[in-house]
């Protein structure tokens, strides 16, 4: 009833090819974005912004990045943590070497640095596929982390080997470093992920995205119809690593404040890959849902017994959390192997007919 597209006639190609062809979708997404910019900074406390929303936004960006590569272009990668580390360390080097440089430019440049490294490690994808490629990207993960741990130049010779985000401002507001208010950091993270999600959405429905999907679905067929595998695959690696690099820079500058290489270990790669798989391969919305699932659900599960008035030891609580979380992952993969995004799609189909299903 509410979600009806009857009467919405597309009279031009432009309206037919819009990002959100249905008016309700358009209104909802626009309202959600506006609300995301306005409401949390006004009403949410430090805990909400700092511990929940900011990591969620950052991981959503990383998940979108990996989804472009794995979901759309079909190249399985376990190097996400490594590419995020490249972004983080180059952002640190850039901003300490050129303090005058706007932090936004620093983030974008560190994304480019990550893209360059991504291109390099994407080269094997031309010859190896599937699980074998995963192993090759795993090498990237281990090599990059080893490199940042080994070469003290990356940390400006800090004896501890950690990188620390200095105070940087955008339009006079401190957005990074310990003195930055959580709201400013949140808005910064949100702005980045909103813009890049839109870019990703447009990428995947245009020529590039279609060529990625062609490669994913059948690379030989794609080659025959004129998609160049070399360029397409490398582009996927480059753009995906760009996203991951920006996310990595944000992870240190907007969320953690200081980090060591351990923050980008193999578990990060798995975490982001799980987000993509659970959210839905080949779906931008899926990346958001996956990030929400992986980041928010454990926090909720930890606090559930407490809010139900049950008193139990924190260790037991944690074990239960891990069990339920694992169980839910299995549950969702069995119920909907195509991810949460597919569930939403099914729900949408039903909503269109509601309340008169035929």
């Amino acid at each position, binding site marked *: 009833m509410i979600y009806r597209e009857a009467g919405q006639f597309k009279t031009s190609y432009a309206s037919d090819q819009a990002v959100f062809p249905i008016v309700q979708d358009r209104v909802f997404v626009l309202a959600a974005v506006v609300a995301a910019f306005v409401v949390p900074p006004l009403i949410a*406390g430090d*805990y909400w912004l*700092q*511990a*929940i929303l900011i990591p969620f936004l950052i991981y959503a960006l990383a998940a979108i990045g990996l989804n472009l590569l794995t979901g759309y272009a079909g190249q399985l990668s376990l190097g996400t943590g490594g590419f995020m580390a490249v972004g983080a360390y180059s952002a640190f080097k850039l901003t300490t070497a050129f303090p005058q440089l706007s932090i936004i430019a620093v983030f974008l440049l560190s994304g480019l640095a990550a893209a360059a490294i991504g291109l390099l490690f994407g080269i094997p994808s031309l010859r190896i596929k599937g699980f074998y490629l995963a192993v090759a990207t795993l090498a990237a993960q281990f090599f990059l982390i080893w490199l940042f741990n080994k070469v003290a130049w990356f940390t400006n010779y800090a*004896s*501890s080997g950690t990188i620390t985000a200095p105070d940087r401002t955008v339009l006079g507001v401190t957005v990074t470093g310990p003195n930055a208010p959580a709201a400013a950091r949140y808005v910064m993270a949100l702005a980045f992920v909103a813009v890049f999600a839109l870019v990703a959405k447009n990428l995947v429905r245009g020529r590039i995205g279609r060529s990625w999907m062609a490669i994913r679905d059948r690379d030989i067929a794609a080659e025959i119809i004129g998609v160049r595998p070399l360029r397409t695959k490398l582009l996927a690696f480059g753009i995906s690593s760009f996203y991951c690099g920006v996310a990595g820079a944000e992870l240190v500058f907007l969320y953690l*404040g200081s980090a060591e290489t351990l923050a980008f270990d193999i578990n990060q790669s798995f975490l982001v890959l799980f987000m993509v798989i659970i959210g839905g391969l080949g779906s931008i919305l899926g990346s958001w849902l996956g990030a929400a699932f992986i980041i928010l659900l454990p926090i909720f599960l930890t606090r559930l017994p407490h809010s139900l008035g049950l008193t139990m030891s*924190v260790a037991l609580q944690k074990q239960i959390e891990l069990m339920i979380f694992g169980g839910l992952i299995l549950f969702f993969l069995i119920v909907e192997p195509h991810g949460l995004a597919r569930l939403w799609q099914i729900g949408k189909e039903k909503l269109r007919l509601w309340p008169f299903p035929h």
Partner: protein
Amino acid sequence: MTWRVALVGIVALAVAAGPWVTRVQAAGEIFIPLLVYRTGPYAPNGIPIANGAIDYFTLVNERDGGVNGVKIAFEECEDQYDTKQGVECYERLKTKNPVLVNPYSTGITYQLIPKAPVDKVVVHSMGYGMTATADGRWFPWVFNFPMTYWSQASAFVKYVAAQEGGMDKLKGKKIAHIYHNSPYGKEANPTLEELARRHAFELTLLAVDHPGQEQKATWLQIRRLNPDWIYISGWGVMNQVAIKEAAAIGFKMDRVVGNWWTGTEVDVIPAGDAAKGYKSMNFNAPGAGFKVHQDINKFLYDKGKGAGRRDGIGEVLYNRMVVNAMLNVEAIRTAMTKHGNKPLTGEQVRWGFENLNLTEKRLEELGMKGMMRPLRVTCENHEGNGQAFVQQWDGKKWNVVSDWIEPIREVVRPKLEAAAVDEAKKLGYTMRDCAKEK
């Protein structure tokens, strides 16, 4: 299909609603958050630490009715020794107005150091964290007394010299440092390098990657190198593996010395008899023979209020946290002499930390005579005047085998002050004038 939809709905709702749930803290108490790791790869180390904290704070509440009548409230939060979860824990518990925090993880400490002056929460990283923060002129909010890693490393070198027969005998000796490849493990390196230059001993640095289960290559290098002494900065499973590997290559156990995080019961027991003779640094005496342990037994465990098992009392890390909790309480008590016996703010407690003067007499009153050294903290020196000793595992328990060793302060302190300037610059701090603080 409906149940499926319902379940999906419930989960979605839960995800959205979960973090809203918070509890309000009772007024009239001082709140201390406990970041613990009772699960995960570092749980064997985390459990005695967590139990020690709860037992001591409960003891103060039960036996003395709190600190000068003000009860201590605390709440645990499980972080699995994971920095991100630790930050989430800290942010969650921050809503309850904590006055101080003991992170018990170098990673989390590094997160909290910049936040401390902003949130007005004292960070007490006892014997860990960032060494440079011992310069209180730059880092007013961070304390790492009774000792830092750098002081510890210098005490270790002094111990080696004493065993070899004097500082001049160090010349040409080979010392290997096997360290956890993380900020924590790297901490001791600059001091060891400096001392190696001064005393002309050969230092080899060998990194072991997290988590440290795989050390074959490292110990192969040790075999080839055949050092005179080995110093280990490890944590968790890395320690057990290192001790087993040392035994496997037949290295003389009494020449392997761990730092104070590399010498607890869970590190040596898995290696069995092979661990006999293994040494480690420490600043709190092991064993359950102190009066405070009798009190813990009497007021808590005899009444079924203990946090752990009775046989865990007196473990190295349990005692360490008891000492840590005692220092927290005494700092609060010191702050009360100035601000009155009421719930204090972080700012007031910070003053207490900075003016802490723990005398031999006070330690005796607390039932901890001999468990640690008297300690005095000042505005400039947040490390205090602590000393370390060496303990040795005899297959059943740890025994103290050295006197208290004074660190080589004339080497450590200037380096520390230089590092403090570097680190503080990164954070945009300015140096305060300690002459004006009172």
